[in-house]
């Protein structure tokens, strides 16, 4: 039901673009709320179609996804109105993507989400937007090709695409999965498949970047773990080697790249890439009972923080023309509320306690320790500690430096409500871990 509501609303919304954006926003939010209600009431896609099953963890992830997208749609302004319909379609596709238990449908919906993301970034207003959009498109197309290659190879050796009854002992399974992972790593922006993301995230419209780097990545992360769980457990050595290697490579390289960026959006883009590295640790530790909780927690926490920082940057870009670090000097005087929320979310990204960023890392990394990978976890923790360098560097510009101009901006009501929703998520999941563990208990 939620799927149908979201798609229908997505078709309905564009009618109101021209005349009244408030109605369009309202319809979107109502659609998100209704979809969340249907998920809450247990009416998943599985009740209508085969190949879809929603467990508690999936439902929680969908719920968080819908809340985040509702917050984003509230925070948008007139310029970004095409995003509203795209977000509704994205939500519909994501709900299906998260619920599916069939590998074939996983691949198909992966493509659907990829195509929606191309349309998202196609909101082009200048040369930089265009460059980012083209890079996202070409990298996405390459990724699709690679995934299909792997999938074709894989389909030789299995007679079922059901997650639970796939034949994974085939001759080509390992190589096929490796090729598919190479494609998926494009979407998860794992180094060395990250090159497009650093440009795309920082150059496309920041609201689109929020969805691209926050929402889509979290969804792909969680769904991929579900889809590949059986492989990860069946090939423990390959799992540990591949994911530990790419986790360490990704976080280290991205953190060092982020340290010497001057564009705020680029720092956030590299921070997003680094977070993909941290998120791979529970993949490497799939053998641990905490891995599912770790991935879910990471996806949930990450969606709130990353979306929020890019949305604030979007506001700042529009109102103050913020591009470089110099532009946010003394921001606390110009935009006290933006600065306050931005700082909290940055601390969350940095992994400061009582915020979701810390607890999600604590659980995800514990999965690594539980699987015996304590040295990988140590490297990840040191990386996240060094990453504080660039987060604090942004905060330093906001609070410790004096402003140049003296214009003062206010946060619009919609933006404020949206940000408060995201902030509430960050704070709630920073203190209360019970929901995550209760949701994953059955896995």
């Amino acid at each position: 039901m939620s799927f149908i509501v979201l798609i229908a609303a997505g078709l309905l919304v564009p009618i109101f673009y021209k005349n009244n954006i408030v109605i369009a926003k309202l319809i979107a939010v109502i659609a998100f709320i209704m979809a969340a209600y249907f998920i809450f009431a247990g009416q998943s896609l599985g009740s209508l179609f085969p190949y879809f099953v929603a467990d508690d963890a999936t439902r929680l992830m969908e719920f968080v996804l819908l809340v985040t997208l509702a917050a984003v749609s509230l925070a948008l302004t007139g310029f970004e109105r095409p995003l509203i319909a795209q977000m509704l379609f994205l939500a519909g596709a994501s709900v299906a993507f998260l619920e599916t238990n069939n590998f074939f449908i996983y691949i198909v919906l992966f493509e659907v989400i990829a195509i929606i993301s191309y349309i998202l970034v196609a909101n082009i207003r200048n040369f930089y937007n265009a460059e980012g959009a083209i890079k996202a498109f070409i990298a996405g197309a390459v990724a699709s090709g690679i995934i299909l290659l792997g999938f074709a190879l894989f389909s030789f050796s299995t007679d079922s695409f059901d997650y639970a009854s796939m034949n994974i002992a085939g001759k080509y399974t390992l190589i096929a999965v490796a090729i598919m992972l190479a494609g998926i790593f494009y979407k998860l922006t794992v180094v060395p498949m990250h090159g497009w993301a650093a440009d795309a995230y920082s150059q496309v419209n920041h609201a689109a970047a929020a969805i691209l780097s926050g929402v889509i990545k979290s969804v792909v992360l969680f769904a991929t773990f579900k889809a590949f769980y059986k492989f990860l457990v069946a090939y423990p050595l390959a799992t540990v080697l591949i994911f530990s290697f790419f986790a360490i490579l990704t976080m280290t390289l991205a953190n060092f790249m982020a340290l010497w960026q001057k564009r705020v959006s680029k720092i956030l883009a590299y921070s997003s890439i680094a977070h993909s590295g941290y998120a791979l640790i529970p993949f490497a530790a799939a053998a641990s009972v905490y891995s599912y909780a770790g991935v879910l927690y990471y996806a949930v926490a990450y969606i709130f923080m990353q979306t929020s920082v890019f949305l604030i940057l979007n506001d700042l870009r529009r109102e103050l023309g913020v591009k470089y670090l110099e532009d946010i000097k003394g921001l606390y005087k110009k935009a006290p509320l933006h600065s306050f929320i931005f700082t909290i979310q940055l601390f969350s990204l940095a992994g400061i306690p009582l915020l979701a960023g810390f607890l999600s890392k604590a659980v995800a990394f514990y999965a690594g320790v539980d699987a015996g990978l304590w040295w990988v976890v140590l490297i990840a923790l040191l990386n996240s500690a060094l990453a504080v360098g660039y987060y604090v560097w942004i905060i330093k510009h906001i609070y410790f430096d004096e402003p140049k101009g003296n214009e003062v901006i206010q946060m619009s009501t919609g933006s404020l409500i949206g940000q408060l929703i995201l902030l509430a998520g960050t704070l709630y999941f920073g203190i209360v871990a019970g929901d995550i563990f209760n949701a994953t208990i059955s896995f």
Partner: protein
Amino acid sequence: MVAVDIIFAPIVFSALVYFLTRGAQHLTKYIALGWFVVLFIIALNWYHQLPVDGGFLFLGNFLSVPQFGFELTLQIDALSVAMLLLTAALLILVVLTSWNEKKQAAYFSLLIMFSGPIFGVFMTTNVLWFFMFWELTLVPMLFLVGIWGAEERIYAAIKFFIYTHVFAMFMFVGFYLLYKQTGYWDLTLIKETALATPALIWWLMFLGFAAKLPVFPFHTWLPDAHVQAPSSISVLLAGVLLKMGAYGLIRFTVELMPITTLEFAKYMLIFGLITTFFAGMLAIYEKHIKKMVAYSSISHMGLVVVAISTMTYDGLSAALFEMIGHALVISPLFLIAGWLHHKTHTWYMDEMGGIMKKAPYAAAIFILAGMAALGLPGTMGFVGELTIIVSAVKAYGWWIAIIALAGMISAGYIIWAVRRAIHGPMSPIVEKADFSMSFAERLALAIYAVLIVYFGINPQPIFDLANQAFSFLGGM
């Protein structure tokens, strides 16, 4: 419920206090003062409720997640209460000494926020929550140093933040392994004998605490942070944040892993001795008055490590006494050093001189605290250093009496500093400067002086607490 409220209320309401009192900046300090007095009274109340035979006073369990053992368990023993009383007292005095600070709403809101996690660190026995509070104390400190500090404040604040954060990560891996190998996050339930790799865990945790204390090779953040911080915040850094390291060392090594600690005590001793002498030498060399005080602070924390490494009842009691004594002694030194800079606009002792004639009150307190730092009988410093030397000699034999040399080194730098800055011919800078001091600052300094002398003559109350805290080691 009081227990959990006094941790979370300040964190949540500090932002509210800031936004409400932004229009009336002078109000915030009264709110802060009132809150810290309440904290002190609550801590005092817990002191009277402590079980007489040692052991923990249980305050409650919150936010339980049984699948992850994640639970905010609040229980306190005499050691925690000693730290809580010290923290609350120092916070009150810090409000007094920063009575005329700039941007008061933000400053005192951050202080209020700081009081939450720092109480949490000393109150919880859950290792994960301990770590969370431990990390959270860094956030208000980052802003307090970074906004109100001296010229190099931004460098110092960020270095302090990243340095201690990075070393905390080693500690966190140690905590992870504790949980992995025992299945408990709770300190009181973890059994050392259940650990598979105690040595690895011990070293990982030791690194985290050593950087906080700080112990010799990991100390480089401290001179920067303490010097650049505003004086009142230096007091908090030296008086409370360094104590977190010593507290953690006692809790997590001596109490939690006595067998492994016994094995590695000799390394701890070596680290402590090197720290004491190295920092003392640096203090002699230093011309910068606040850096001199900062190095003397490191030197005294080295003595605390030596005392902890003995792992005896005497040693730990001496360590607790020296922790409290160090906090009370070093604070007026920091305050007056910062105050002198504020008035004379120079950091260097060579350019001062003759302050006694212009500002006799501050100079007298500086001399008193300095004498306490070098261990003059009748002050807290004497009792602390004497008990440390006695306990170390008992534990390691007569040769350890060389740490008495540390007292001589501190005599060297303190007396020389007094000679250069306080006495001597009056320098032109001092001649021009205006040495007025507010009543609140005078009051705070007087309280420090009274406490230093009172506990120097009558150390029994602190040793009573130590008796309760370390009764598991046999007692006297």
